[in-house]
């Protein structure tokens, strides 16, 4: 056991056994994310992906197949943060930070010894960020979810309160997480298809969405969005942003 794919695979397997989550659910995350990547264009993976191709991709560490894993990529990303009053005279529409938080899982260094393998740091940070922001899951128009693996998206959607624990698999189906769906996610293609720029590309994408600069992948009338990030093995950070009036 050396690689994140192996360590996270055990949690994914447990979720499948406990709640009936399936490879079909994983595939949906991969396929929708790829569709978004193609709309973005500035991505590593620019060919369409089908559910069948996902299921036929080679097994890495069961239940993770190749297309359940994010890309190891080189890339650069930067964001500029300023006081709101100083930013007022900038050319671009302002995006304000409503709430931020970070949380660490019990037994941060060893996934294996965590009382609950499925309690990522986001379990602690999400409620704090929602409280600070004064919004809840129902107010989120677009979400950029740290997608080191397809499964970690499904589990974070549960932790974030978009559905209950165990319902993440069915939640991602039926177009819900695609553009035009109830909760479009990873509208840039994420770590799975745009590239693993350590999740900073998620912050940039959410900023573009709220500035309405996301081109073909624009979520109509996006006002409030949410972005999650990881550190190490499941430390959970979250930021909730709003398009300034």
């Amino acid at each position, binding site marked *: *056991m050396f690689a994140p794919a192996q360590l996270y695979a055990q*949690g994914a397997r*447990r979720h499948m056994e406990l709640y009936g989550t399936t490879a079909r659910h994983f595939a949906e995350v991969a396929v929708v994310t790829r569709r978004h990547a193609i709309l973005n264009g500035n991505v590593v993976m620019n060919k369409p992906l089908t559910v069948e191709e996902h299921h036929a991709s080679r097994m890495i*560490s069961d*239940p993770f197949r190749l297309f359940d894993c994010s890309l190891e990529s080189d890339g650069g990303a930067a964001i500029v943060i300023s006081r709101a009053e100083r930013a007022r005279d900038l050319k671009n529409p302002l995006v304000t930070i409503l709430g931020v938080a970070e949380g660490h899982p019990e*037994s941060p260094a060893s996934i294996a*010894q965590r009382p609950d*393998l499925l309690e990522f740091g986001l379990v602690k940070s999400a409620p704090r960020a929602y409280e600070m922001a004064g919004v809840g899951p129902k107010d989120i128009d677009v979400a950029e979810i740290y997608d080191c693996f397809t499964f970690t998206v499904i589990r974070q959607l549960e932790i974030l309160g978009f559905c209950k624990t165990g319902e993440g698999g069915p939640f991602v189906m039926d177009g819900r997480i695609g553009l035009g769906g109830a909760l479009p996610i990873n509208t840039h293609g994420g770590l799975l298809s745009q590239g693993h720029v350590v999740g900073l590309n998620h912050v940039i994408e959410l900023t573009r969405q709220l500035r309405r600069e996301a081109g073909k992948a624009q979520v109509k009338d996006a006002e409030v969005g949410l972005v999650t990030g990881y550190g190490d093995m499941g430390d959970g950070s979250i930021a909730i942003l709003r398009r300034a009036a």
Partner: protein
Amino acid sequence: MSTAPAAAPAPAPAPERPLPVPTRESQPFWDGMREGRFMLQHCAACGKVRHYPRPVCPHCFSMDSEFREAPQGGKIHAWTVCHHPFNFFFKAAAPYIVALVDMDAGGDVPVRVNAPLRGVAEADLEIGKRVRLGFEPVNKEVTLPFFVAE
């Protein structure tokens, strides 16, 4: 679970097996492995078990500890089947099952061991399945744990 490795096009030097390096804290655990015993670190102040071995108790922060022999059985908590060899040494063994096991020694604090599970078919894997430790000597210093069905 191992399958025969495909014939290599050209002979390459055999990759070295990656092995754990015992530390001052973990030495009693590895000594136990060599003797076919499952030794667990306990806090000498509050008595709570902690695994993997480390210098400070996460419950009371005491640095005093002692090792006690623990039962070798447990129940499967989760598993993965490793197909991609992230280290080339394991290429010949893949695919192999690595089970994460809730050891009987754990009470309110989980004690989990991650080790290869041998002699069990993938179709027979389930959460809660009883397994027990086996011991594979690798060299004079290191004996590695594995699991078999109980």
